[in-house]
């Protein structure tokens, strides 16, 4: 006789965590101000991510309900776009350009250096929670390659040495 719990479907999702108070406020705020705009889903997702840094998974049913769309649809949109994330980022997000103009100026070497220096692969966050490394395909700074963006500020002509200096500067600004 098997235990009842083992009869559950293997991929049964874990019980949904509820949104905490901050998250709830961010999600409800975004929904209240944007739900009636045409094509509201992307603006809503941006608004939530702007406040929280990511879109917590329990926000999906709330958004779906407000827009009268299925959870699958909302999840489909959320997972389609590279910019949106469903896990908290580190305190600083580094967007490292991988595109051709940067490649022509040594972006591949810079990418290898960044990963080694931070000890993470793309989409990873350093163990101390300081930096998240994300790939990006062009920052429009192609005449000053290689480029990266830290917390919304673009930096040009970044080599390994400059990269290390930027990490230090970023953490100093924070303190």
């Amino acid at each position, binding site marked *: 006789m098997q235990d009842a719990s083992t009869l559950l479907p293997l991929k049964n999702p874990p019980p949904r965590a509820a949104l905490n108070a901050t998250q709830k406020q961010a999600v409800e705020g975004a929904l209240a101000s944007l739900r009636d705009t*045409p*094509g*509201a*889903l*992307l*603006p809503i*997702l*941006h608004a939530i991510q702007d406040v929280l840094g990511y879109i917590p998974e329990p926000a999906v049913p709330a958004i779906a309900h407000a*827009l009268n769309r299925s959870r699958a*649809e909302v999840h*489909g*949109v959320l997972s*389609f*776009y*590279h*910019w*949106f994330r469903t896990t908290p980022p580190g305190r600083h997000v580094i*967007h490292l350009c991988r*595109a*051709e*103009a*940067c*490649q*022509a*100026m040594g972006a*591949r070497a810079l990418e290898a250096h960044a990963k080694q220096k931070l000890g993470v692969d793309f989409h990873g966050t350093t163990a101390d929670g300081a930096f998240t490394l994300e790939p*990006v*395909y*062009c*920052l*429009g*700074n*192609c*005449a*000053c*390659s290689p*480029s990266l*963006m830290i917390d*919304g*500020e*673009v*930096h*040009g*002509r970044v080599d390994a040495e400059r990269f290390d200096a930027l990490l230090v500067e970023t953490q100093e600004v924070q303190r």
Partner: protein
Amino acid sequence: MSTTVYVSRDASALAMGAERVARAIADEARRTGADVRLVRNGSRGMFWLEPLVEVVTPAGRVAYGPVQPRDIAGLFSAGFLQGGAHALRLGAVEEIPYFAKQERLTFARVGLTDPLSLEDYRAHGGLRGLTRALELAPADIVKLVTDSGLRGRGGAAFPAGIKWKTALEASVQPSALSPQPSKYIVCNADEGDSGTFSDRMLMEGDPYVLIEGMIIAGLAVGATRGYIYLRCEYPHAHRALETAIAIAYGNHILGGDVLGSGQRFDLEVRLGAGAYICGEETSLLDSLEGKRGQVRVKPPLPAVKGLFGQPTIINNVITLASVPIILDQGAEFYRNFGLGRSRGTLPLQLAGNIKYGGLVEKAFGLTLRELLYDYGGGAASGRPIRAVQVGGPLGAYLPESQFDTPIDYEAFAANRGMLGHGGIVAFDDTVDMAEQARFAMEFCAIESCGKCTPCRIGSTRGVEVIDRIVANQARAQSETLLRDLCETMLHGSLCALGGLTPYPVLSALEHFAEDFHKPSPPSLAMGERVG
């Protein structure tokens, strides 16, 4: 009397340290008691000179660059506020050959004016095109644009006038979304091609010209609402547009009474979310509607059935921003630039491994070689330029033997390449073209919307096949397979992403075959150590 000093707020100038330079100037002015008025302009587009500082003197604007914060004290003591001599003094920007040789129509004001000052905008010819458009019948505006020969600057080069005429003649459909459905003007500001930054520069450096162009488009086809679909990787352009739109509303340029005409035009910025495919017009429309950015099957054309099912003009930033000058100066004026079927000017962008990278707005017809060497000064590394990719990640890699191709849509198409959005990325002789070909496939795999099989699956298989070729596994068969795969993608894909990815791959294979045929490294004996 205060002295006006310009320091750019363009994202690339900031990336080179313009913010710290501006702050240092303000600090030094305070310290020395100098009366300085700092204006944060767009960039003149000569990025090797950024951060560029321009001082207004009785004899005109005098430029200094590239300036770093440590230079500021020295500049003040050299009397740079009076245009004094200094090692970084460049003289008038207009006399620097790189700039002097250009034909700046669309970019006439970028770097010259305060991007957010309406006064500056009007003083430099702004709003004259819109004023003219308000006197014309919609069909006459469309005719002017058609006669100017303006073609879509986003990459596809479709004649703007024909698109506009289709939208003008299409009728609004009844809609469940709105009691008063409208046609739409959508600006494609999802400038995702590597090596391109003209849209960004224009939005940051002269946002009103884009707003003006969109209002004119609205008048031309009877649309009262516009959206700028901006990529989220451009936070500086986002801030510039939001501020400019708010000011335009406050001054009756946007809203219910455009320049006192009683005509309405509303405009909003919408942010993309890091999907390259949303630069494709129908994906962009789906994204604006709040969906996954998946390509639509055409027909129906967006001009007939576009955003929310309504007739929609969707044009690139540069296309729309070129409209005001056409209305102001006439179709003939614009047409007189360029050659063949490529009329007007194209803002070209020199990028990658190039000594003098930046923006070069020129009439069509100059050659790639002139751009790379006369303007670009060769590779930044000082080594020979080996390959050039024109037109973004879907553009062909051109070898030196094709550098005499004129900048002209048809000439590039004849070479199985494309001019696209005018981005030119140079590579020196250290480039591994097999790696570049592999990246083209990899990028397509990452960015495919997944709707059609040749693109979704073909790109992944493409990466694998290139890996096999480079690893010398069944080389002949693998190469045949790769060419076959490229043919399938070329003809079987729904849009340009899958359909053009073969261009960089095949051109690399064609012109740089030796990079795919590297001798395999000598196998190491057991226990032998490397390095």
